[in-house]
């Protein structure tokens, strides 16, 4: 038996045919399937939009979602997306400090708004976002501070709020449960006797737009104090001028106070404490430039 024989025998299989009964059954099955397919297609065609309309609809949807996200308030499920987008945009800003400061102020105001409205959940989300902005600011700030001149000049003395019967147009930070925004210590300068207006009634926070005469705003100044041996200092006098009145007390090696200042002002902090054992007055000082509503100073050593 050679290959040719086999090949010809295989050709004989060509006569195998599907039975007519089976063929009819398959044909019927196919006809049903075709009808189903046709009705499915016509249904689909009814919903099909023309190409340009689809592209337009998608673009409109993207814009709407983007717009809604960027305007999402703290009680919106899109809020975390908005915060993520805003934080991600920091790297693209020409002036990241002013951008983050704006974010900080917006979030601060938002948190106060929701606290006033009694929406604790939204307020806490806004606070978290605010802390997030603060962290970003702290990340950026040291780089800027390194570029500042080492000594404050006489002309850059701090600006204390002047006693005024009317409140400032700038927003006063509202008390909050988080330590960063809680003004536990106030400047010694008397404040207006009238209570600050409710946040909801306040005018919108003026944005720090580039202007030759920047407006003052409350600045939260914070720092730490240690002795030369690095142990924390307690009950020292913190003042904004050399041997000036104490505008803040401090405990556990930390100090903080609020002060009104403009962006770009250099705030000097003078600390003194009488050593009861030696009778000597230990002194220390630090300074920083105002770039945002929070000024974090480093550690000041009393000597």
């Amino acid at each position: 038996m050679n290959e040719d024989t086999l090949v010809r025998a295989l050709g004989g299989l060509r006569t195998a045919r599907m039975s007519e009964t089976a063929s009819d059954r398959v044909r019927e099955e196919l006809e049903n399937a075709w009808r189903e397919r046709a009705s499915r297609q016509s249904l689909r065609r009814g919903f099909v939009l023309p190409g340009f309309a689809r592209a337009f609809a998608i673009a409109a949807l993207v814009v709407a979602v983007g717009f809604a996200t960027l305007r999402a308030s703290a009680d919106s499920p899109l809020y975390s997306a908005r915060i993520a987008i805003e934080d991600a945009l920091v790297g693209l800003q020409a002036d990241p400090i002013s951008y983050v400061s704006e974010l900080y102020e917006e979030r601060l105001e938002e948190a106060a708004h929701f606290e006033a409205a009694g929406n604790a959940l939204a307020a806490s989300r806004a606070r978290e976002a605010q802390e997030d902005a603060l962290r970003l600011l702290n990340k950026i700030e040291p780089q800027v501070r390194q570029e500042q001149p080492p000594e404050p000049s006489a002309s850059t003395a701090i600006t204390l709020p002047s006693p005024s019967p009317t409140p400032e147009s700038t927003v006063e930070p509202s008390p909050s449960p988080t330590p960063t925004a809680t003004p536990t210590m106030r400047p010694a300068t008397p404040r207006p006797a009238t209570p600050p207006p409710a946040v909801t009634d306040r005018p919108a926070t003026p944005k720090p737009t580039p202007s030759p005469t920047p407006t003052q705003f409350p600045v939260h100044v914070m720092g730490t104090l240690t002795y030369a041996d690095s142990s924390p200092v307690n009950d020292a006098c913190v003042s904004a001028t050399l041997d000036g009145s104490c505008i803040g007390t401090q405990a556990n090696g930390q100090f903080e106070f609020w002060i009104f200042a403009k962006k770009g002002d250099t705030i000097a902090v003078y600390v003194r404490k009488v050593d009861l054992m030696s009778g000597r007055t230990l002194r220390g000082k630090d300074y920083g430039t105002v770039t945002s509503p929070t000024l974090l100073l480093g550690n000041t050593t009393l000597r």
Partner: protein
Amino acid sequence: MKAAQAGDASAFGQLYERYRDPVYRYCLTRTGAKHEAEDLVADVFLRAMEALDRYEDRGLPFVAFLFRVARNAAIDKSRRTRPDMSVDDLVHHPESGQNVEAEVVRSTEREALVEAMSKLKPDYREVLLLRFVEGYGAADVGRMTGRSEGAVRTLQHRAVERLRRELERAGDASLFDRWSGGAEAAK
């Protein structure tokens, strides 16, 4: 084909009438059982119908597309169920009383041939079917199966050799004596 793609039911019906038997033979050699092959034919044409919108003419005959669909359908089917080779299904039953003796001979040959083929690898079975049952050239089979023409010829040679050995082992080689000394050989 284009008319069927445009939604013409009768055009698809014509495709079915034209290609059902080659597809059936393909399915038969894959499944080895008549009823399974018939079910598979239905599956193949249903799949082809669903894939009609995506079908592109790449210069291959439409039947090549159907064979490819059949191949995938057969693989899916064999994954689901273990194929049960029933040689009885392949025996051709004479439709008339005329020339009954010749029909019996052909039926016996076919039974032996398909039984031997069932013992071959799927690739061998496929190349034997396409080349010698359906009569496609080596180049066409190569395009259908994604092989070079040379690879198809090598495969076909091995497949024939293996088939011959299977028939000899079964003692059925002498059944095909009437085919020897015939016409042309496979190209």
